[in-house]
């Protein structure tokens, strides 16, 4: 499965890029995060505190245990601060 993975705010800064294409067999967001953390220290650092990370699947907010089947775009970001 090929995913477009996006990073925003300090997640983007820590990982060092705004988006990338990722080939994965992860079944859930949590599995994808675990896989990313094994890649390089910058990913491990970015996802060290998951209480401070939010995720959207195809531009809808989701939980960390949400399944990735059929998803094309995954975005990770800190809690939002609009307004």
């Amino acid at each position, binding site marked *: 499965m090929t995913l477009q993975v*996006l990073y*925003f*705010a*300090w997640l*983007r800064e820590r990982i060092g890029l705004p988006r990338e294409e990722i080939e994965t067999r992860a079944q859930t967001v949590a599995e994808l995060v675990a896989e990313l953390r094994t890649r390089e220290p910058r990913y491990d650092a970015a996802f060290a505190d998951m209480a401070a990370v939010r995720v*959207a699947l195809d*531009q*809808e*907010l989701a939980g960390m245990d949400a399944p990735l089947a059929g998803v094309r775009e995954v*975005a990770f*970001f*800190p*809690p*939002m*601060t*609009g*307004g």
Partner: protein
Amino acid sequence: MSVRVQREAFDYGRECAGFERAAAASGAGAVVTFCGIVRDLPGGGLRHMEIEHYPGMTERALGAIEAEARQRWALDAALIVHRYGSLAPGETIMMVATAAPHRADAFDAAAFLMDYLKSRAPFWKKETGPEGAAWVAARTEDEAALERWSDAAARRGDGPGGA
């Protein structure tokens, strides 16, 4: 009903004027507007605020929040405008406006739009000041503010007021 996400500055007063004239023409009796302004740092010296957003999701999220407000309250009109990019202290960040037959609906809907927009629309703020740049942390109060719309909302919506 309208949602705009833009880099360019907008004129709050002019938006209020246009919104009110359209609301009056559609028979509204009450208009509420809110705008947020870039505040200086507590110690002063804010150089600028950078607002990052998630193009595509931002419009969807604001559209969904506005649709939810229209479902909960009897609104004649609603408007959300939100900027992104670099803003100076004192600049207008965003605004919401609501119009309804009576004031309770206009007030509640505007407060609802703000509460949801704060914590559910994909914007992130970064402030650059004398000590460098720092991401603005989410406020626990803002998350808590959402709760009042869960079951208390129906009560408040049917509650006191009227324009």
